[in-house]
C-alpha cells in the first residue's frame, strides 16, 4: 500500500502536530518565534500571569517598526517611539532572548533579517506578531502572522492551537517579460483572486515562473500572500533555497547541514497531491503593475486607464469604487501613465533586498529624480552590500535620501510619513487609506517601476525608459 500523497503544507503541518482535539483543533509546535517592538502587549500578558518564555533559544527579538531611518548616532527624539525600542530590549533581556537592537550589525526588518541570518529554514513553523510573516514561506516553511494574545501563548508554551487551513495551489508557468518582476506577479495574483480570495487557505506557489525566481523574488511573492487573505504562502525548497541558506550565521553547519538538506528534499508536494483549489496564471500575460485604489486587489497593468464606477452593475460595489477614487484623487478614464506623483518610497519587507535595490538603481543610474524620495534598505547587511556596489551613490546622485534599515514609510510609525494629500509611488505591500499617513495616497509597484516614477514624476511603464 502506498502512502497518501501529501502537499508541502501537509507534510510541514503533520510534522508539528503535538495534540488534536475531537473538534479538529490541533496544537502545533512552533520552531521560530520572532518578536518586534509591538510585542509589549504579549510580554505584559505573560508577566501578569507570572509565566516564563518556554523556549528562549527559539525566540528572537528584532527592532524594526519604530527605529529611525535617519541618523542613529543621536538618541530617538520622540520619547514614546524611543520607549518602544527600549521596552523591546528590556523585555528580551529579562527573558534571556537574542535581541537584534538598533545598533546590532545584523539589524533589519525581521522578514529580511531572519532569512539573511539563516534563522528561516525549510520545513519550520514560524510565527511573529506581524501579518507579513508569510514572507518566510519562500523557504518552504509554514509561516504566519498572529495577534498579541497568540504571541503570549507561544511565549508561554511554544505551541499554538490552529484549525487546519484549506490548501490552494497557484501555478504560474512561462517566462516573465523584461522588467516584469516578482512584485508584478504577486499583484497579478491578488488582482485575479481578490483581497480575500485565499481566506482560510495556505497557498503553494508552483510552476516554472516561480521556480525561476531568486530567493529575493520568492520572498516578495510569499510576503504578499496575506494581501490575498491567505493564512500563509509557501514555495517548495530546491537547490536555489539550499545554496542561499548554506553558510549563513544561524544555519546548520557541516554534517548537520547535509542531514537537513536530505530531509528538506522530501518536503516538496508529491506529484499526486490534491489541493482544495487550483488557480493558474500565464507568466506571459503579466505586465508591470500599479494599484489605483485602496486595496492591493486594485492592481492593473500600468498601461490601463482609471476604471469607471459607472460600468459597475452592483450599486454597493460602484459606491465603494467611487469612495476609493475620491480618496485617491483619480478621475475615471484617465490613463494611469498620466497620473503625477509627489514622492517615492523604495523599501519594506516586500522590496528592500539587494536585488530590489539593484533593480531600482539600474533605472535611476545617470538620471535625476523629478520628485523627492526615500530609499530604505531592509537590513544593515543589505545596506553594506549595496554601498559596496555603489548603489547608494546612484540614489543620492538622483536626489533621493538613503536611509537606515527598518519598516519606515511602509507603516509610518517611526515618523516617516507621506504628507496628507500627497501621492506616493511605493514598493510596499498596502495601499490602505491612511497607511502611509493620514490622507496619504499610495500606489503599489515594483522597485523598478517606483524608480521609473521617480525619474519622470508620473506613473511610468519602466519598459519605455530604455533601461537594459
Amino acid at each position, binding site marked *: 500500500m502506498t502512502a497518501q500523497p501529501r502537499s508541502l503544507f501537509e507534510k510541514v503541518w503533520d510534522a508539528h502536530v*503535538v*495534540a488534536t482535539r475531537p*473538534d*479538529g*483543533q490541533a*496544537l502545533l*509546535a512552533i*520552531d521560530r518565534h520572532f518578536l518586534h517592538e509591538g510585542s509589549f*502587549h504579549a510580554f*505584559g500578558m505573560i508577566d501578569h*500571569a507570572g*509565566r516564563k518564555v518556554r523556549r528562549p*533559544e*527559539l525566540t528572537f527579538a528584532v527592532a524594526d517598526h*519604530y527605529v529611525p531611518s535617519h541618523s542613529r548616532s543621536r538618541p530617538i527624539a520622540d520619547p514614546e*517611539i524611543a520607549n518602544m525600542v527600549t521596552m523591546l530590549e528590556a523585555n528580551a533581556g529579562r527573558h534571556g532572548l537574542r535581541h537584534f537592537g538598533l545598533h546590532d550589525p545584523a539589524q533589519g526588518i525581521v522578514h529580511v533579517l531572519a532569512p539573511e*541570518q539563516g534563522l528561516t*529554514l525549510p*520545513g519550520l513553523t514560524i510565527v511573529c*506578531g*506581524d*501579518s507579513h510573516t508569510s514572507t518566510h514561506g519562500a523557504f518552504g516553511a509554514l509561516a*504566519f*502572522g*498572529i*495577534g*498579541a494574545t497568540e504571541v*503570549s*501563548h507561544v511565549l*508561554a*508554551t*511554544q*505551541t499554538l*492551537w490552529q*484549525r487546519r487551513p484549506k490548501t490552494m495551489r497557484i501555478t504560474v508557468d512561462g517566462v516573465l517579460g523584461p522588467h516584469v518582476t516578482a512584485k508584478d506577479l504577486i499583484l497579478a495574483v491578488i488582482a485575479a483572486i*481578490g*483581497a*480575500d480570495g485565499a*481566506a482560510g487557505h495556505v497557498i503553494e506557489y508552483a510552476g516554472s515562473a516561480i521556480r525561476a525566481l531568486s530567493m529575493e523574488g520568492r520572498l516578495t511573492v510569499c510576503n504578499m500572500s*496575506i494581501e490575498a*487573505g491567505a493564512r500563509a504562502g509557501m514555495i517548495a525548497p530546491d537547490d536555489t533555497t539550499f545554496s542561499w541558506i548554506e553558510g549563513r*550565521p*544561524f*544555519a*546548520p*553547519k557541516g554534517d548537520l*547541514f547535509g*542531514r*537537513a538538506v536530505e530531509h528538506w528534499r522530501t518536503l516538496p508536494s508529491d506529484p499526486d497531491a490534491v489541493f482544495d483549489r487550483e488557480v493558474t496564471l500565464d507568466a506571459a500575460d503579466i505586465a508591470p503593475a500599479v494599484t489605483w485604489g*485602496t*486595496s492591493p486587489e486594485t492592481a492593473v497593468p500600468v498601461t490601463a486607464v482609471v476604471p469607471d464606477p459607472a460600468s459597475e452593475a452592483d450599486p*454597493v460595489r460602484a459606491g*465603494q469604487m467611487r469612495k476609493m477614487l475620491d480618496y485617491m484623487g483619480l478621475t475615471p478614464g484617465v490613463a494611469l501613465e498620466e497620473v503625477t506623483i509627489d514622492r517615492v518610497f523604495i523599501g519594506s519587507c516586500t522590496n528592500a533586498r539587494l536585488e530590489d535595490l539593484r533593480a531600482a538603481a539600474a533605472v535611476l543610474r545617470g538620471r535625476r529624480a523629478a520628485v523627492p524620495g526615500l530609499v530604505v534598505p531592509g537590513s544593515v547587511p543589505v545596506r553594506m552590500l549595496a554601498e559596496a556596489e555603489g548603489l547608494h551613490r546612484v540614489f543620492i546622485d538622483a536626489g533621493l535620501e538613503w536611509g537606515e534599515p527598518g519598516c519606515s514609510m511602509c507603516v*509610518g*510609525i517611526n515618523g516617516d510619513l507621506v504628507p496628507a494629500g500627497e501621492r506616493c509611488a511605493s514598493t510596499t505591500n*498596502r495601499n*490602505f*487609506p491612511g497607511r502611509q499617513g*493620514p*490622507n496619504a495616497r499610495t500606489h503599489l509597484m515594483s522597485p523598478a517601476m517606483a524608480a521609473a516614477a521617480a525619474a519622470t514624476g508620473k506613473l511610468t511603464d519602466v519598459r519605455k525608459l530604455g533601461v537594459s
Partner: protein
Amino acid sequence: MEPFVTLTAPAVPLDIANIDTDQLLPARFLKKPRSAGYGNFLFHDERKPGFPLDDPAYAGARILVSDRNFGCGSSREGAVYALVDGGFRCVVAPSFGDIFAANAAKNGLLTVTLPEETVALLRRQLQATPGTAVTVDLPAQSLTGPDGRVLSFAIDPFKKDCLVEGLDDVALTLRQQGAIDAFDREDVVRRPWVVPAEV
C-alpha cells in the same frame, strides 16, 4: 475574558468592503498602553461627517454589520481592542481577515460570517430602520434580524466554547504539558538542526 452568550443590541451598518485594521486602529496609536483605553482610537481617521458610527440614530450600537474581508491587513490586536473598548461585542460580515477573527475570539468579540446577500440585506434593513435591535444567540448559533427572521450561522466549535466559557487557552494548553515535552524530546532527535547553534 468576558464570556459571550447572548446579546440584544442596536446594530450599525457599514457599507465598506475590505475594512482593514489600519482603518480600525491607525498605526500611530499602536504604542499606547492597553490601560489607555482604545475606544477613542476606533476608526479615528474615518470619523468624517456622515460616518454611520457617529450617527445618533445608531447610538448604543454593540453590533457592527459590514462587508467582505472585514479586518484584513495587519495582525494588530489593537484593532480588536478598539472595537471592544468602543462598545462592540459582535461583527457580522461575509468574510473576515483570518488573523483579525482569531484575535477577536481571544477578546470576547464574536465574528459572525453570513452569505454576502444576507449581510447586504441586513445592512439595507438597518439603514431603513436605524436603531433596531438585533439578537445574537451564540449557543444556538442564531442571529435574529430587524425583520424578526432567524438566521443560523456556523462557527468553529473550539472558538464557540472559548467564547461561551470565556476560556484562557494558555491554561487549556498547559494541560497538554506532557505531550509538548514528549514532542520536544522526539523532535530534537528527528530534526537536530532546528535549534540554532549559539552565534
